[in-house]
């Protein structure tokens, strides 16, 4: 059988109720002797305050406690601040090894920071567990309070029990016997202050802003939705985060789109502010030298046409041209492309002349595309150059052998075999920037450097985030809830007639100054005295002791 508490007024309250939901009579013995009653959650029967037997009760009670919630907030707050002492791993230069970087930059404390894992603090298991616990606390604490609070506020009667009125913070008695006309005035005045006035047997309950009581629960719901959004990110297909380096003139499939889209970089440029043009800024420009005005990649987006068989070249159809700038990403079909990085003047082509070292006579010019070099360059009159090896990003390894660090032409080097009528077997020459080696003995001919062509490269972040709307909804609901709870107050005024006396009590969940001002304005010109603030009276009393 379900336990219940019967009140003298006839209302049946759920087990654990402190103040009768209907008349407000104190049902809990512990509160009977106190001077003022605890009005939090209307003295309703909260599960966490009523049951503490099973393991579920214990877990429920743990998470519904505000003390636990606040502790979790404080732990997260301190942990978060620790994560800002040194930069997180994602912000250190990409070429640096974290293991080396933190010690090199910040000494011993940096090393310790790395060893404790604080360089990845926000994705550490313990940080995520704290967030998950806070989320659980938000959910359980809200349910524990909102359900009984809703019952209590819904069932409240107009005429309250004496004890309930007496033990309100604002309470006063006026002894008089003919105040009937005042009541009408007071009612009107309350209504003009947008109170909802209910009357029953000459007793008044004036109430306003009850909906503000739901504010905390609405904003907690928003936060829970927000956190759910964070979890959904880990579902496959919801989130794409790729980087695309694209040279001028180059067209590439966009990573993360499964080959559906391709992007072409038509031009990339960096613009700086001009002192002459922008006179207002000349002092600031002088101070730092140059200030960048714009990073811009002019691109064309293509979409694949139809299905292609493996091995078959895909056909692409142009969708749109766009100038991607910082703050102006290109958006299409849940994807967004952002300007994030760039490289100016990357080498694209190198030109050489085949030259007789002693006579300086040349026998033709070859132009090597650094992305797609040919293996043989034929010249006229029986001259030709074979490209035996190509190192786009050349360095010597530990055995003094030429190798390439990357496929990017940062420091190109070539091994040529120059075939000429007088040396039909060819002469081998190793050519790098400002460096020529002749590994197989002295040559007659050389590849004389004749010029380079460059182009700019843009780096774009490719982003798809199907969880964004959830965060947006969660954030929106949070804002509504927090405004609802912060900018409105739940005020109640009870006026009752008891044996030739008029009893007046007032309660608000916050902003007592506002409630007192309301009451004093309502009572102005009537014979009813303003109620006393029993909390202030108590404090004064304590000080005098």
């Amino acid at each position, binding site marked *: 059988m379900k336990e219940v508490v019967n009140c003298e007024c006839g209302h049946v309250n759920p087990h654990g109720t402190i103040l009768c939901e209907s008349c407000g009579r104190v049902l809990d013995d512990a509160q009977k002797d106190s001077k003022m009653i605890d009005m*939090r959650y209307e003295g309703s029967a909260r599960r966490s305050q009523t049951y503490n037997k099973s393991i579920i009760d214990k877990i429920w009670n743990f998470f519904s406690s*505000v*003390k636990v*919630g*606040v502790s979790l*907030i*404080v732990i*997260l*707050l301190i942990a*978060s*601040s620790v*994560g*800002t*002492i040194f*930069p*997180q791993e*994602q*912000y250190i230069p990409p070429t640096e090894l974290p293991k080396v970087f933190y010690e*090199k*930059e*910040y*000494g011993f404390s940096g090393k310790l920071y790395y060893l404790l894992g604080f360089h990845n603090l*926000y994705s550490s298991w313990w940080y995520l567990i704290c967030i998950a616990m806070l989320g659980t606390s938000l959910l359980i604490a809200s349910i524990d309070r909102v359900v009984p609070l809703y019952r209590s506020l819904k069932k409240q009667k107009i005429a309250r029990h004496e004890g309930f009125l007496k033990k309100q913070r604002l309470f006063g008695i006026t002894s008089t016997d003919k105040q009937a006309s005042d009541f009408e005035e007071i009612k009107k005045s309350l209504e003009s202050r947008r109170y909802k006035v209910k009357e029953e047997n000459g007793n008044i309950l004036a109430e306003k802003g009850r909906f503000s009581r739901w504010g905390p629960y609405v904003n907690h719901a928003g936060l829970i939705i927000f956190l759910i959004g964070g979890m959904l990110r880990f579902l496959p297909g919801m989130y794409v*985060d790729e980087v695309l380096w694209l040279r001028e003139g180059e067209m590439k499939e966009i990573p993360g789109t499964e080959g559906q889209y391709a992007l072409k970089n038509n031009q990339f440029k960096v613009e700086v*502010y001009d002192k002459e043009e*922008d006179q*207002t*800024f000349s*002092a*600031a*420009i002088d*101070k730092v030298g140059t*200030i*960048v*005005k*714009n*990073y811009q990649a002019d691109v064309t987006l293509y979409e694949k046409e139809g299905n292609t068989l493996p091995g078959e070249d895909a056909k692409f159809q142009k969708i749109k041209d766009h100038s991607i*700038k*910082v*703050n102006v*990403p290109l958006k299409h079909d849940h994807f*967004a492309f*952002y300007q*994030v990085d760039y490289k100016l003047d990357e080498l694209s082509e190198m030109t050489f002349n085949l030259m007789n070292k002693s006579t300086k006579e040349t026998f033709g010019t070859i132009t090597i595309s650094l992305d797609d070099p040919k293996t043989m360059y034929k010249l006229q009159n029986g001259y030709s150059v074979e490209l035996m090896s190509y190192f786009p990003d050349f360095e010597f390894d530990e055995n003094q052998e030429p190798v390439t660090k990357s496929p990017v032409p940062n420091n190109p080097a070539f091994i040529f075999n120059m075939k000429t009528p007088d040396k039909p077997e060819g002469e081998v020459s190793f050519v790098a920037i400002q460096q020529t080696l002749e590994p197989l003995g002295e040559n007659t001919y050389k590849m004389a450097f004749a010029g380079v062509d460059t182009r700019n490269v843009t780096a774009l*972040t490719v*982003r798809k*985030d199907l969880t*964004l709307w959830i*965060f947006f909804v969660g*954030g929106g609901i*949070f*804002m509504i809830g*927090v*405004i609802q709870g*912060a*900018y409105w107050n739940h005020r109640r005024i009870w006026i009752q007639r008891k044996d030739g006396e008029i009893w007046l009590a007032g309660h608000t969940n*916050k*902003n007592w*100054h506002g409630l007192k001002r309301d009451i004093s304005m309502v009572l102005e010109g009537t014979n009813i005295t303003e109620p006393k603030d029993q909390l*202030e009276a108590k404090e004064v009393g304590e000080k005098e002791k």
Partner: protein
Amino acid sequence: MAELSGNLLYASFVLYLVGTFFFGGAIKDKKGETEKKQNKWAIIAIGLTILGFVAQVGYFITRWLASGHAPVSNLFEFTTFFGMMLIAAFILIYFIYKTPALGLFALPIALLIIAYASMFPREISPLIPALQSDWLHIHVTTAAAGQAVLSISFVAAILYLIKSVDQSKRNKKTFWLEVIMFTMVATLAFVIITSTFSALDYKANFTWMNKYNKEDVFEYHLPALIGPHEGVLLTEGKMKPFVEMPAIIDANKANTVVWSLFSGLILYGLLRLIFRRRVAAIFKPLVKNVNLDLVDEISYRSILIGFPIFTLGALIFAMIWAQIAWTRFWGWDPKEVWALITWLFYAAFLHLRLSRGWHGEKSAWLAVVGFAIIMFNLIVVNLILAGLHSYA
């Protein structure tokens, strides 16, 4: 236009300063004792404050016109705007509660903030690509407004603590209250020292070895008490440093901090010598008529008003813009994290207040911590913790 803008800012500064004295007069006047009726002093004081605010809005608009963007794009502009919002928040709260004593403390704090702001470079600079967005105006102004309203709770808390902390015996409370007082005195000292040496056009150049063992240069604008690692003074006739810092520490910044602390200590010591009392005790007679419950409520109310504005500006608008400019709405950049910390702190404050009954003095100390976090985010995060937000 830029010159007019500077003059308007100067005018507002002077008006706030004069306003402070009138607020002082307002609480001395016997008629001001009851809250409901304002005396003449108070009316003049709030009038001057509003006039000063109008002048500062004038500064804001003219500078906007001159530069073509809202002047909230570097530390000088942001901090000045924060001071302006603090005044706006004070005016709002004043019209709700009509307490001149609040003005007596809010105005000097705003003055300190504006003076501190003007220690940073004041040239009108163009917007770098990352800042070229309408969200600059929306996000930064709302975040600053939120922080300013939250800061009013600190002002009220100071009033509360000056009145409630018992000055007759020395204890933890008097100590921490003096720490707050000293921080403000040291800020004032920093402003005085920096502007003095800047008026003298003091410059001393050093070469030094940085942490990568490469030669680097420093330009000191204050005489070097603290020198850089293996520093060599290049400018003739300037002071040589007493101590040398290891390469890992920015000696130039450390020197400024040491100067502020030392001159702050001297100024604070002078105050103690002249008045023969703790600094907080000097102010105590000024808050004689303050109603503690009312001040506590002002402190709580301003957090209630400021919290949603702060959330909107410093978190929600910030996330929307970060998604547009930085490809993700949240990236654990130090400024973002400290905005989150501020938010978590005030959330904890509200829960403690609602459910655990932290009222009065406890709540006042919390409001002080909250303001310390806001200042930390404004000063330390920008100047020391490098990140995406370090523009100035």
